[in-house]
């Protein structure tokens, strides 16, 4: 890389004035989109959920379907799953504040979802969930 030093600069660079907004990830939460389900009610979201690993081990249902009223977000779906599967399930997915544990990996239509506020603009979705606890040293 080519470098040149501005020695003895009279004033400090303004750290807050060189932020390149193009470099920063968008904070806008994109909506989940999918094809319209011709058989579904226009008022309901049909959810097909698959649970893996530890989440599957604490429930009797590792694949389940449910219906959630619209408008829905991923949080709505998680809450509906919690209502059906119980507190033991919910405690492994979200913390006391309702935020998703980072180690709970959640995919809607194969797309990873970090923000539970993500709106769902679809008639049906497939959701997959797994706990991916990992630690590392070295």
């Amino acid at each position: 890389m080519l470098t040149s030093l501005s020695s003895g600069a009279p004033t400090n660079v303004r750290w807050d004035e060189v932020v390149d907004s193009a470099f920063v990830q968008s904070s806008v939460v994109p909506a989940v989109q999918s094809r319209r389900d011709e058989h579904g009610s226009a008022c309901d979201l049909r959810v097909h959920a698959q649970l893996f690993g530890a989440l599957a081990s604490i429930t009797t249902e590792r694949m389940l379907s449910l219906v959630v009223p619209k408008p829905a977000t991923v949080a709505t779906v998680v809450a509906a799953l919690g209502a059906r599967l119980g507190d033991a399930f919910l405690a492994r997915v979200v913390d006391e504040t309702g935020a998703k544990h980072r180690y709970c990996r959640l995919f809607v239509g194969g797309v990873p979802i970090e923000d539970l506020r993500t709106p769902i603009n679809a008639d049906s979705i497939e959701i997959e969930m797994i706990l991916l606890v990992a630690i590392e040293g070295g």
Partner: protein
Amino acid sequence: MNMMNVMNTTAQPIDDVWIPSSCSLCYGTCSILAHRVDGVVVKIEGNPESAVGKGRLCGKGVSGIMTHYDPNRLTRPLRRTNPKKGLNEDPKWKEISWGEALDEICAVLKKVRAEDPRKLVVQRTTTVTASRIPFQTFAAAFGTPNFSVSGGGQHCGNGAHLISGIMHASWSVVPDFEHCNYAIYFGASKGHSAGHASCSNMGKAAEARARGMKMIVVDPFCNFAAAKASEWVPLRVGTDAALALAMCNVMVNELGIYDGPYLQAKTNAPYLVGPDKLYVRHPETKQPLVWDAQSSTARPYTDVKAADMALEGEFTVNGTPCRPSFHCLRDHLRKFTPEWAAEISTIPATTVRRLAKEFGTEARVGSTIVVDGVTLPYRPVAAIAFRGSQGHMNSVYNFYAVDLLNHLVGAADVVGSCLGFNPACHGHPETGKLRYIPSAGPDGLMVTGMWMGYHYPYPPSEPRLPTNLGLQDLFVLGMTSPFLDSTDREEMWERFDLPYRPEVMVNFGANLVMSIANKEAVAASLAKYKFMVSFDLFLTETSNFADIVLPDCSYLQSLDSRSNFPFIFSLPAGVGEWCWPIRQPVLPPDGEQRNCADVLLEIADRVGFRADLNAAYNASLKLQAPHRLEGETRYSYAQICDAELKNNFGSERGLEWFKEQGLIKWKKKPAEVYWRPFVDVRVPVYWEFMLPIGNKIAAIAEPRGLKIPMEYYQPLPDFLPCTSHCCQKPDFDFYAFYYRDIVHTNSFTMENPWLDEAARLDPFSYTIAINRAQARKRALHDGQLVWIENEAGRKVKGRLKLTEAIHPEGIGIGAMCGHWSDGMPVAKGKGVFFNELLELDWAHVSPVNNNLDLCAKVRIVPAEVTP
């Protein structure tokens, strides 16, 4: 040049190729070229095409041939016939078939998974970075949260990684070798030893020193880094925070050196703090408030221009008296005078003041530099720390105090400064994959864009009653945990009503009997497992506790689509290239050796959780359509590697493309390397979150009889002594510590004959270093056989090596020597087993991050009559 099929026409061998792959003699995982002639690897060199190693290869890397061809390698599965397990028990191995082995393993795993999958502990060595994904996914799919990396983390990183993550969004930190003019190392050897980006950093550090970078090494021992430094500053073991805090005090309060604009814009220094040590928040939005000097009002930090945020002053907001965090920090630092630090650390006050002045002056606060046409802040100083300084009771504050030096002068991820390893990546230019950038989390503080697991350093999880054996649910600032093996583990589990106990362990290459602490403690823990299976190259001290041992492939026989973790672990920081190398087999398995990743897939099929494992791979590798693994399809590990490579780099660049090319690389941009000014995130110079976390942990632990020492959970760093510093026993005059020998990695390379020879030629590798003057005062002589005994009466024997290059109170011992397994005959009996001196219980770990305290107060007792 195509690396493959370069024929030597004069000798006309049938097979003469240079194959690009990845080393695995340490977790640096440098890129290599293996020269195979007629089916035999005859030489290993660094791959000059790769940014990981940059064509350099250390002595360990070139010696890998000897590890691979070691006649003591396992070639068939073994089953113990002696049901008794213990340090002195002979397992009485018998060879069995893979079919028999897997039948038994799968029957056990099926039963445990049906009962409670948490009864399984998955353990692996950190030496083989690429083993992370296969074992992490296996554990996740099986359904157990009990995953451990043996001594890794507990020794070398619960502090370093936590704070590097919170403050630099990365796994570790280094000086920006290309531009740094003044680096101060606290118990670190980056660029002078093994580990993260080791060979790349060695080259960069050497060039920096040749360019004139002044390098100060603060360490009780003048060895690998200090010997090449401009100045060695010996200190009392475990007192790094005292020096760092006194330097901060001198800079801020005596010299008035700090980077105000950086502190305003990029840290929480302006956030107002009340008498309860917590932020003063907006009553409705709960956002931290700052004092707006323009309007003379308190407003949310998001609503005020950084330049208008007050860093100092006494204010009253809604009736609450408050001060900016920086004001609290500045006041807090006043008590750390150089004279106070001299008492603690033995470093003269004049030296403390000089170092502070040099660091502050060399920082050139206010200067800028143009890099590739981009004007950037220029702060050519770096204070870095690693295992040595953070391996103590005071793990968190030791590292936090060192890193404050950087943040006070704005020397964080800008040109010349302290850099995290590649925390921001725009992604591959064609696919956009692998893009990650730090982002603003709660209170505007930085959340890493990439991390080694999903246990992120910030924001910390909410402490809760633990459901995992390591108690990380409760001690949320820890990563790896001592409580799987500690002498008080059962007491801890009972205290927290853990509803299950570990019954089965799957181990990959970890030699935890040697790598954690005293062997009796770990052996007692291992002996309690009802069943243990271990993938190993040799019969180690730990595999002797297994019921079944499986013969693993060496790195020269293995395939991995990600030999390095992208990109915060092994890729060098600073200018250069992004680089993704693979590992590929250079040689076939010998006998019945099998690659562990494929074995794990077969186990999943037999036990019946392949769909879970496919889902875990999808999640861990971030596979997206059309490369996601589907349903219960029985993919081979090669197919999974192919999917990952195509997912990241395009369908035309699958496994076959990578086998031919060895790696893919592209140029880093200035805004990636020096990302800090470009990303709107702040880092905490005042750790306000500590107090609430400590209180929440105490609220759970103290009613159950575990006292939480709240002095460790304060928002600002302090010097808190180790157990060893409080020892009052007569004759216990020395602080024993270990160091990582440059010729060895963990416990495993001692079996390599070339490295053993190098270690035997080194006067220190297998001996006990002691200060010459102190030895003579006690009539101890060079080569004398002595016992080193800790306060609890544990002792190790070895020969003294007298030297001026160690602190007068220090006893330095090379790490993890002293093997006793017959399965590693080259290593057996060499050197001194330092870890025997380490206690393994709550009283000897950091109460914050559970890092082990790695020093011990000891006495020396002659083991033979002085001639």
